[in-house]
C-alpha cells in the first residue's frame, strides 16, 4: 500500500479547509503474507475509504473520510489511482490543520457479505501528511 500526497490549507471563514491530492497503489487480494482470499463466496462487495486522522487543540481525535469507493466482487482488486482529489471537503472543526504535522491517512474497508457479519478492516501501511504553517491563497484545486 503506497500513497503519495501533496497538500495545503486555505482559510475558510472559521474552519480550516485542507486540500489533499494522493496516489493509491493497493492490491486488496494479496496485501499481506498469508492473507486469505478476501473476496470469497460470501463477500458481496468491499466499501473502501481513505480517511485522515489527526489531533487538534479543539478535539482530541478527528477522523475525516476523504475518498471512498465501492468494489464489487468481480471488479479488479488492484487499485492504481494517481493524482486523486478528495471527494469530500476536508473541513476541520476549527483551525487545527494549519501547521499540523501529524495527519495520518489510512485506507480501510468494510466487508459487506451476502449475509453475516460486517467487519471493518484497516489496510496495512499508512502515510503521515504534514500540513504547512501558512495558508495558501493562490493555488487552485
Amino acid at each position: 500500500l503506497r500513497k503519495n500526497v501533496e497538500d495545503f490549507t486555505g482559510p475558510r471563514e472559521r474552519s480550516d479547509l485542507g486540500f489533499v491530492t494522493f496516489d493509491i497503489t493497493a492490491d486488496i487480494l494479496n496485501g499481506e503474507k498469508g492473507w486469505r482470499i478476501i473476496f470469497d463466496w460470501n463477500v458481496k462487495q468491499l466499501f473502501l475509504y481513505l480517511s485522515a486522522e489527526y489531533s487538534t487543540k479543539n478535539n482530541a481525535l478527528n477522523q475525516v473520510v476523504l475518498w471512498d469507493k465501492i468494489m464489487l466482487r468481480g471488479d479488479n482488486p488492484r487499485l492504481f489511482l494517481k493524482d486523486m482529489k478528495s471527494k469530500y471537503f476536508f473541513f476541520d472543526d476549527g483551525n487545527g490543520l494549519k501547521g499540523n504535522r501529524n495527519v495520518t491517512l489510512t485506507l480501510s474497508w468494510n466487508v459487506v457479505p451476502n449475509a453475516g457479519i460486517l467487519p471493518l478492516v484497516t489496510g496495512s501501511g499508512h502515510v503521515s501528511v504534514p500540513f504547512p504553517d501558512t495558508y495558501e491563497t493562490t493555488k487552485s484545486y
Partner: protein
Amino acid sequence: PPSSSVLAMLSLDFLDDVRRMNKRQLYYQVLNFGMIVSSALMIWKGLMVVTGSESPIVVVLSGSMEPAFHRGDLLFLTNRIEDPIRVGEIVVFRIEGREIPIVHRVLKIHEKQNGDIKFLTKGDNNAVDDRGLYKRGQHWLEKKDVVGRARGFVPYIGIVTILMNDYPKFKYAVLFLLGLFVLVHRE
C-alpha cells in the same frame, strides 16, 4: 403437525373440534399462547440488554445504502458504550423528533478528550452528506441520536415487516392466520 391442521381446516372438521373443546382445553390453549408471547418478549428484552441497543434488529427502509443494503434487509445492531464511533461504521440513528430510523455510514468525527463526540453521516448511494436531513440548525449527530451500529445482516427477510406496514390488510390477515393456527394446533 401443521399439515393435519390444514387438512382439518379444509374439511371443516375444525369447527367440530372447537365445539368439542371444553373450557379447560380452551384456557390451556390461551395460556400456551400467552407463554409463547412472553417468551418472545423476554428474548427481545434479552437482546436489548446484550447489545445495548433499544432496537437490536432493524429493517432497512430505503435504498440509500445500495448496493450494500436494499429495502427489506434485516440489520443486527449493537450499541455498546465501549465501542467508540469511528468513520466507516454503519450507524442507525434517529433525528430528534422523528420516528424513522436511518441507516447510513459515518463520514466525519470530532471527538473531545472527555469522549464527547459529534459526527456526520452519509448514505453510500446518496450524492451528498446527511446535513440536509438533520433538524434545522443541527449540523452534527451525537451519541444520543444513535440506535446502534450495524454488525451483521441478513438480506430480504425484513420484507414481511415492510409489507405489513404498507398494506394493513396483509398485517391483519397474517395475525388472523397466526391466531387461528395457535388455537387449532394439536400438540
